[in-house]
């Protein structure tokens, strides 16, 4: 349970705490969600790695290890506020994303991004390169400002981040469900058509 405290803090420090928490939350969300999705359905990510030229021998291991590293980095930036390695891991992953983007630009044919799991039509390219300074800047800023929460509080914040991700996923699910229902109703109409003519005549066209 979160505990209220009325300890006075300098306003500037409070702003910094919120900024660090917000940045860390965004980093956690951008890493744990997609990482979990890649772990749930590794085929799309595996095909991306294969298109990037990764040897077959390490393909299977990499398609599990890399998303696991994403989840680990995203979770631990909140769960382990006194440790530096989650920040370093985030920067390393961001470098990897940028490298993948560079390789995607050089590839003969577009390589599917699969950054957020399968189902996306995005391709690897400049986006990953432009995002690297943002990733690195956010990670460094979080560490520079300082993570002043405890591991227990970090677990609560991680739960909030995951709840937000669940909410976003639920919105996508609701839209897909609505489309599926509309298609089903329309399919019923076409499979059980009512062919009564619009005009009442003795002879109908065939």
């Amino acid at each position, binding site marked *: 349970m979160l505990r209220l405290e009325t300890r006075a803090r300098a306003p500037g420090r409070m702003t910094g705490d919120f900024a660090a928490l917000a940045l860390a939350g965004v980093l956690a969300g951008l890493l744990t969600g997609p990482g979990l999705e890649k772990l749930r359905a590794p085929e799309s990510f595996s095909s991306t790695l294969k298109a990037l030229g990764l040897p077959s021998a390490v393909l299977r291991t990499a398609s599990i290890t890399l998303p696991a590293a994403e989840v680990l980095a995203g979770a631990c930036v909140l769960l382990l506020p006194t440790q530096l390695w989650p920040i370093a891991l985030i920067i390393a992953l961001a470098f990897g994303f940028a490298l993948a983007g560079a390789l995607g630009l050089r590839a003969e044919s577009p390589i599917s991004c699969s950054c957020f799991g399968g189902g996306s039509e995005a391709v690897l390219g400049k986006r990953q390169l432009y995002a690297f300074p943002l990733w690195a800047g956010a990670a460094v800023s979080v560490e520079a400002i300082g993570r002043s929460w*405890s591991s227990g509080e970090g*677990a609560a914040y991680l739960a909030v981040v995951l709840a937000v991700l669940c909410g976003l996923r639920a919105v996508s699910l609701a839209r897909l469900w609505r489309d*599926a229902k509309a*298609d089903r109703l329309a399919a019923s109409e076409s499979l059980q*058509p009512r062919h*009564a003519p619009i005009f*009442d005549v003795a002879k109908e066209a065939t």
Partner: protein
Amino acid sequence: MLPFSMSPRRPREYRSCCDRHNPRALPRGCTLLLLGAQVELFRSLQQVREQAGLLDRATPVDLGSARGLRASEVGLPVGLDTETSALVLFLSDKCFVCRSIAAGLQGALLRGVWLVLDPGSAGPDAQLAPALGFNAEDEKVVVDPERKIMKAIGTLGTPLVLSVEHGRLTRASGITSTRQVYELAGSALPQQARPESDHVKQEGMMA
């Protein structure tokens, strides 16, 4: 007052990653995975429907030079020139989907919806089938025996929905179901117009 504690390093007893007072992260992670699996399931079904041609989507139709013309200029009723927003539904007696849509409307024209009917090979003297319930005397029901209006618009495909805004033609869409007429008109599909099988039947209707 902050809604939660922002104190620096807490005592050792609060340093555990899986604090027993905050076990919410793991079940929410599992929920995220389950939701992801469901999204993938629906996307797979969408691909199957797409392959089977069962996607209920309106197809945009290019109006070409007819875009921007006043409704009366293409032979539509003069009353449409003063409409702020209206839909014109084109149905042909030669088209089975059109017949199905005509039957699905159950003789009731939605607000802002006008009807242009092509008798097809039934002939220019053909009468509207009474069973459908449309009133041939209604200003909003137009019989276009030689498809003059459709030729003026530049498209002969049916069923077609033409949007008229401030009296002028704006866009057109090919449709495939009664549901799309209601959706484009911004109305809810009435219960009577729904097919009997509103739930998944054992015959294998799609979800």
